C-alpha cells in the first residue's frame, strides 16, 4: 500500500516538473536556446498569485488568472528586449543573456518581496480523500496538479497539430529558414512560444507552491533545473517527451527518497539522467538526427 502512496506523490510532483519542462522544451525546440530564466518565471508567477490572494483578498482562481497574465506579458517582454536582438548569434551568447535575465528576476523579486520566505496558502480548498481505509491519502493538490498536467498536455498537442500558429511553430522548429520562405512570421512565432511557455510556468508556480508552501526568490531555480533535466530526459524539443520525462523524474525522485537515501536523492536523479543519455543520447522520445557531411 505504501508503494502506491509514493507513486501518487511521485506522479504529483512529476506533473509539476512536466508542466515546467513543457515550457523548456517548446522554447528549445523553436528558438534553439536554453532558457535558464524559465525557472524564475515560475517564482514570479507564484509571487503574483500570493499577492493577489494575500494582499488583495481575491479568490484563488483570480490569482491564477493574474499570475498567468503577468507571466505571459513578462515572457514576451523578456524575449523582445533580451533575446530577440541576439537572434542568429552563437547559442552561448543567448545562454549568458538568459543567465543575466535569471539574476535580474531573482534580485528584482528580492527587492520587491524581500528574501524572507513567504507562506503560500494553497489554492485548493478540497479535503483530502482517504482510500483503502486511510492507508492512501490523495490531497486536492495532487488531483488538481495531475488534472492540470493532463489538460495542458492535451491542449498543447491539439494546439500544435490543429491550429495555424501551432503548425507554424512546428515548421519553425523543423527548419527556421524554410519556414520563413514559406511566409511564416518567425519572430512572431517565437514570441508566441515564449508567451505560452511563460503562461505554463505561472501555472506550474502556483501548483508547486500549493504543494510546497514556502515561497522565496530562489524558489524557482531548483525545480527549474530539475524540469530542464526532465525535458532532456524525455528528449528535448518533444512535447510528449517532456511529459514523460517530468513524470518519470518525479517518480524516481520520490522512490529514491523513500527506499534508497534521502540525502542522495539529487545524486540518484542526476545519475539516472546520465545513464539514460548514454544509452539513448537524444533522450527517451527524442529524434536522433544524423549529421550530414
Amino acid at each position, binding site marked *: 500500500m505504501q508503494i502506491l502512496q509514493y507513486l501518487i506523490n511521485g506522479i504529483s510532483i512529476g506533473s509539476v516538473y512536466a508542466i515546467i519542462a513543457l515550457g523548456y522544451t517548446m522554447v528549445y525546440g523553436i528558438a534553439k536556446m536554453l532558457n535558464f530564466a524559465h525557472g524564475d518565471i515560475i517564482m514570479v508567477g507564484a509571487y503574483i498569485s500570493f499577492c493577489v490572494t494575500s494582499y488583495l483578498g481575491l479568490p484563488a482562481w483570480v490569482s491564477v488568472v493574474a499570475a498567468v497574465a503577468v507571466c505571459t506579458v513578462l515572457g514576451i517582454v523578456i524575449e523582445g528586449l533580451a533575446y530577440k*536582438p541576439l537572434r542568429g*548569434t552563437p547559442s*552561448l551568447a543567448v545562454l*549568458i543573456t538568459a543567465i543575466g535575465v535569471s539574476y535580474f528576476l531573482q534580485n528584482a523579486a*528580492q527587492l520587491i518581496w524581500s528574501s524572507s520566505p513567504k507562506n503560500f496558502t494553497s489554492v485548493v480548498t478540497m479535503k483530502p480523500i482517504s482510500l483503502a481505509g486511510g492507508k492512501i491519502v490523495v490531497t486536492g493538490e495532487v488531483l488538481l496538479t495531475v488534472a492540470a498536467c493532463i489538460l495542458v498536455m492535451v491542449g498543447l498537442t491539439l494546439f500544435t497539430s490543429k491550429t495555424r500558429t501551432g503548425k507554424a511553430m512546428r515548421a519553425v522548429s523543423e527548419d527556421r529558414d524554410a519556414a520563413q520562405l514559406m511566409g511564416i512570421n518567425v519572430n512572431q512565432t517565437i514570441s508566441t512560444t515564449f508567451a505560452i511557455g511563460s503562461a505554463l510556468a505561472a501555472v506550474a508556480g502556483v501548483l508547486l507552491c500549493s504543494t510546497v508552501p514556502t515561497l522565496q526568490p530562489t524558489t524557482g531555480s531548483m525545480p527549474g533545473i530539475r524540469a530542464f533535466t526532465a525535458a532532456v530526459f524525455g528528449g528535448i524539443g518533444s512535447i510528449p517527451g517532456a511529459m514523460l520525462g517530468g513524470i518519470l523524474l518525479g517518480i524516481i525522485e520520490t522512490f529514491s527518497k523513500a527506499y534508497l537515501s534521502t540525502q542522495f536523492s539529487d*545524486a540518484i536523479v542526476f545519475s539516472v539522467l546520465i545513464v539514460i543519455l548514454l544509452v539513448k543520447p537524444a533522450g527517451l522520445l527524442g529524434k536522433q538526427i544524423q549529421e550530414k557531411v
Partner: protein
Amino acid sequence: MKKILNNKTTRTNLLTYLVVIVAFAVMQAMNSAGMLGSSMKGFLVPICVYISLAVSLNLLVGICGELSLGHAGFMGIGAFSGVIIAALLKDVVANDFLRLLLAMVCGGVFAGVVGFLIGVPVLRLRGDYLAIVTLAFGEIMKNIIGNLYAGTDSEGFHMAISTSKMKLAAGGKYIVSGPLGATGIQKLATFTMGFLLVLFTLFIVQNLINSKEGRAIRAVRDNRIAAESVGINVTAFRMKAFVVSAFLAGMAGALFGLNYSSVTASKFNFNTSINILVFVVLGGMGNILGSVISATVLYVLPEAMRGLQDYRMILYAIVLILVMLFTWSPKVKEFMSVIADKVSGVFKKKEAGTNE
C-alpha cells in the same frame, strides 16, 4: 629574439604573462605599502582562483568548443581533497608553503582522475547534451561532497558518506562533517601561491593551445567531421583537454578551500559554474588574456558595488545583459559601425577642408 617577437601568438602569450606579472608586482607593492583595505586584501586569493578557473574553463569552452556547466564540481573536489590532505599532513610536513603546494597538487590530481572517469562515458555526447551531463555531474558532486564525513582519531584516518557509518574514537577530530562542510581549516593560502597558480595555469593552457594537440583540438572544434577524416582521434584530444581543465580547476579549488576557515559544499553549486562561464564568455571565447581580465573585473565589480547594497546584484545582471547585447547583437553592431563611419567622415571632411 626579434624573430620570436614577430610571431603573433608568441607576442600575445608574452603580453598575457607580462600583464599578470605587472599586476602581481603592483598589488604586492601596494600591499606592503599598506595601501590596500582589508576587504581588498581578502579579494586577492579568490581573484587568482577565479582567473585560473576561467582560463581552464576557456580551454574547454573556447578552444575545445564544449559547453561545460559543471566546472564548480571539479573545484569542489579539489577544495575538499586539498583541505583533507592539508589537515592530514599537518604533522608530517612542517613547511606551510610546501604543504599548500602538496594539497593543491593532490586536489588537482583527484579532480583530474574524476574528470577522466567521467570523461570516458560522457565525452561520447555532444553539444547541449554534453552541457546537461556536466550540469548533472556538478550537482552529483555537490550532493556527495555535502554528505561526506572525514576525520582522524587514534586509529588513523576515517571517511564515510553518512553519519551512522562514521565512528570516531574518543578524542577524534572531524575534518569534514557532512552538510556543515569542512571547518577549522588552517588558512594556508597566500597571494604569492595564487600568483604562481595563475602563471602555472597560463603556462599549461597557452602551451597546450599552441602545440600539436592544441591545433588538433581547434580543428575538432571548427569541424569535427573534417578533423576525423584527416585522422585526428577526436575523443582522445577532447579527453586530454577535459582532464587538463579538471586538473587545473582542482588545484584552484584546493587553494580556494585553504583560503577560508570553513567551506561548505553548497559553495560549489550551479551558480558558481555559471559565474565562471560568464567570465569566459565576456572575456572572449578562446581569448586567454580576456579571461584573466574579465575574471578580475567581474569578481571585483559586485564586491565594489557593496555600497549600493540590495541594488548591486540587479545592476550586475543589467550590466551582464547589456554587455551581451552590445557585443553580440547584429543590429547594435551595425548601429555602432554607422556611428563610427560618421565620426570618421567628420574628421575626413575637416582634413579635406584644411587642404583646400
